[in-house]
């Protein structure tokens, strides 16, 4: 029993880091510009297919392909901001919801016609790591280590670099930031780009662990919403913690009850947090 529990905790935490990355992308965009990006799931799926294509067509190692996918994710975000988000950013929230949802439908439509909704596998293995009776697959371990690294880099960027400080300033008070001479449009575009980049990275990491299809991003988008609310809207560190909690629930709950109960408990927790602590575990901006 102790062994199963330990194995489940480890499996859960490892995948939790990856969930955290996906949620950070969503929460960063919301924190900076109050836009809920409904194309988040499809962008995760694009990250998955990016790694799949680079690996299966060009033979590039998935963890190297990841860097390319991250850059493409950033560029896609910048483009998407300019085309679909910038003009509606001052409009009522429904406009940006509809506009990002349109992007969602377009990605899904094009993706389905290119790849159908069939599953694909990135046939890449890093073997297993055995500690005592616990076996962890190499790809899962590597994915979570990269997720931790990405989080560290994000924090370094937000707190130690000038553009990062701009982003925090705009998130804090856009008008004041603009008065201080911060080019807010560029900062908003950059934030959006980083948000989609994180989604693409999460997708790329997931592709090394699980089979993928063009609709697979949807379930991670849903998880991201739960995590973001749990951790506190607009709070990247909260997202990471939320991701770990969700991963733990998914890992540990099935030890005691049937696995089909996992989503029930996840969304029950979601409602409880909305009712009891709407600002999330770490709290956030009003």
């Amino acid at each position, binding site marked *: *029993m102790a*062994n*199963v529990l330990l*194995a*489940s905790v480890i*499996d859960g935490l490892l*995948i939790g880091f990856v969930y955290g990355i996906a949620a950070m992308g969503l929460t960063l965009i919301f924190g900076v510009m109050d836009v809920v990006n409904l194309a988040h799931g499809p962008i995760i799926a694009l990250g998955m297919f990016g790694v799949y294509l680079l690996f299966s067509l060009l033979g590039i190692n998935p963890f190297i392909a990841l860097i390319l996918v991250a850059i493409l994710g950033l560029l896609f975000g910048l483009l998407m901001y300019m085309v679909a988000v910038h003009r509606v950013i001052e409009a009522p929230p429904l406009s940006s919801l509809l506009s990002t949802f349109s992007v969602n439908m377009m990605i899904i439509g094009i993706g389905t016609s290119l790849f159908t909704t069939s*599953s694909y*596998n990135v*046939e890449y*293995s890093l073997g*297993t790591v*055995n500690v005592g009776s616990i*076996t962890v*697959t190499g790809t899962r371990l590597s994915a979570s280590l990269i997720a931790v690294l990405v989080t560290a880099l994000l924090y370094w960027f937000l707190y130690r670099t000038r553009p990062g400080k701009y982003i925090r300033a705009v998130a804090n008070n856009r008008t004041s930031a603009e008065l201080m001479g911060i080019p807010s449009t560029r900062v908003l575009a950059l934030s959006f780009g980083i948000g989609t980049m994180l989604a693409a990275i999460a997708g790329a990491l997931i592709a090394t*662990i*699980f*089979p993928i299809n063009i609709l*697979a991003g949807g*379930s991670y988008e849903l998880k991201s919403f739960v995590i973001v609310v749990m951790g506190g809207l607009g709070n990247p560190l909260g997202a990471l913690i939320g991701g770990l909690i969700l991963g733990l629930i*998914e*890992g540990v709950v*099935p*030890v005691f009850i*049937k*696995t*089909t109960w*996992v989503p029930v408990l996840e969304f029950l927790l979601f409602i409880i947090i909305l009712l009891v602590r709407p600002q999330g575990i770490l709290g956030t901006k009003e």
Partner: protein
Amino acid sequence: MSRKVLLIVGLLVIVALALTACATTSGGSSGGEKTVTIGFTASQTGKYNVSSGRQSNGLQMWMDDINAAGGIKLSDGTVLKFAAKSYDDESNKDRVQELYTRLATEDKADFLISPYSSGLTAAASVIAEQYGKVMITTGAASDATYQQGYTLVYQAYTPASRYLTSSVDLLASLDASAKKVAFVYENSKFSTSVVEAAKAYAENKGYEVVLFEGYDPDTKDFNPFINKIQAAGPDAILGGGHFQDGSTFARQLSEKNINVKFISLLVAPPEPTFAELGDAAVGVAGPSQWEPSAKYSADAAKAAGMDWLGLSSTEFAQKYQEKFNEEPSYHAAGGYAAGLLLQNAIQKADSIETSKVKAALDATNLMTFFGALKFDTSADRHGLQVGHSMIVVQWQRDSSGNLVKQVVWPSSGATADPLYPIR
């Protein structure tokens, strides 16, 4: 008022005309040639198009073969030739009901063959029974259709309730000391009915079921189940569901180095693409309705006291490959077998009259390249397939290291010894 009368008279005239039309087509003509119409729908579009297409290819091939062989000669000198009447059902239940009604009435099909899948077949069965047409079902494994009190519907496939039982028999023959079994299966109607029946069967045989749990159809992370399996320490894992979840499950079992002696999963292992799993596929077994390497023969039929009809598996596979340029799947074989069942019954009945053919079908005790075929004739499960049993295939590496799918059960038709324990 007079309009109503006119309508009734009109209807009566139509009915009378239809009756005389029926009489002229099915009665009379002794000697000479007669064309028997076989009606069915195929899912040319929609989600079943691949499997359904293969099924109708198989049926069409049977029809071509029997016609090329000169048809069936009845004792009164009539020569029966066969012609197909078919429509696209769009993988849609409502279309199936419309089209089978049309086949039975307007097209005056003499016999019906089912569409592909249990769901569509259930819809077609109602119509067949309603219009008093014999229907051979193929590509439909569900047991439920045969528990509705139908009298004219006959199943060619092994029913879901016996899908995994041959895997239990195989395990029993391999290792008397392996007694702990884990069932991990997809939460769908088909898989649940399969594992519930297999669980009862295994428990009856003295197996201890250490885990019995379903997963959602779109599950991608099987680690929670695998951790539980590891804790329960079973000798064998049975279950699965469809292709995607089954292959992911097999892959993750292998990644996590789970030590079990035997794995048998539904649907995924018989598919040729299962080989893409590489090492993870090695040792994984699964039930299949039919395989090209299956060795049923006239001699085996004789030994079992059964009739033999038709060609051998190798001949079937070769002909099919030539005709359609692909390896036949069990769907194709099922289509051909449905034709053979009908052919056998018509020959035995020496007639195409429904009541006589029905009696001959009830008495069927036939072996074909598809395997043994026999029907339950009890009132509450009439038409259920009781003769055919599942083949168990297992992926093994051959001497040059290539992955090959071997038939390992029943031992009489085996192409290789089972790999056991697999890890």
